């Protein structure tokens, strides 16, 4: 009972934490644009939170640079359970044009488990909202599905 209530609450207001793991800002600007009047995701109760301890969803964009990989992991560990990760943009998914650069450490899903992947370079704010909607559908299913998750 309490659990269902908690899930319901979570779905009604997923608070997100936005992290740039060293991208070109394109995706970050679009994530930010999703919060501004034209798209206004706050109408779904989605709030951008500056602290990982308040957040349910981590929105991560950018290539994992060597400098930032360890820090991303640390931030992820600080988020309370259950936590979800939304990877935005080609860089976060695989590295995009930066594949095989010496500054790129690895893909995001090699460091932390990713729930929903949003391809695009950069994806439209609508596509990011679409990703959030798919993430919420997944979260509604109770326990996070194992698909796409790595240990």
């Amino acid at each position: 009972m309490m659990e269902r209530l908690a899930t319901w609450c979570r779905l009604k207001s997923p608070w997100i934490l936005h992290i740039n793991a060293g991208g070109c800002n394109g995706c970050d600007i679009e994530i930010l644009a999703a919060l501004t009047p034209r798209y206004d995701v706050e109408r779904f109760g989605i709030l951008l939170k500056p602290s990982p301890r308040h957040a349910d969803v981590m929105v991560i964009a950018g290539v994992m640079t060597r400098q930032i990989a360890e820090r991303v992991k640390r931030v992820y560990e600080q988020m309370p359970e259950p936590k979800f990760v939304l990877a935005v943009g080609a860089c976060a998914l695989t590295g995009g044009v930066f594949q095989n650069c010496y500054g790129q450490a690895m893909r995001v899903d090699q460091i932390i488990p990713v729930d929903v992947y949003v391809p695009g370079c950069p994806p439209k704010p609508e596509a990011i909202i679409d990703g959030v909607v798919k993430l919420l559908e997944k979260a509604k299913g109770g326990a996070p599905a194992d698909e796409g998750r790595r240990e």
Partner: protein
Amino acid sequence: MRAEGSEGSFIEGLRSELGDRILEARVLGPRRVAISVKPGDHRIAMEALKKFGGSHMSTITGTDMGEAIEISYHVWCYQAKMEVSIRTGIPKSSPIIETVSDLIPGSVLYEAEARDLLGIEFKGLPYEGRLVLPEDWPEGVCPLRKDWKPDWLK
């Protein structure tokens, strides 16, 4: 101070300042001039450029040319409206050159970047430590040298 002029007359003007110190002068395109000087003379050339309003360091490029490392100082001359590349080569075995950061203070970060990526030592550079490379990057490995290859190419 000179008014805006063609590249050829600009090179003539530079030659009258620097004489034989210019080993080679080329026109790269409209408002683009490249001169080659011996290492050590690059500071004198930069002093001479100040007469043309050349106080803006656009950037410093270091290039691994095999035996030598070539350094290009790209200076924009405000009055002459000319981008001058001062090129000089230093041996790869002992890549040491005098800094120009006392002549143009804005070149500190460019020199620090070239030191990181190509292992050029700038004598008298006030900035210490790494600028762009990660903290866990091995000491003495310079990624922009041609003999360094990323893992996937090895």
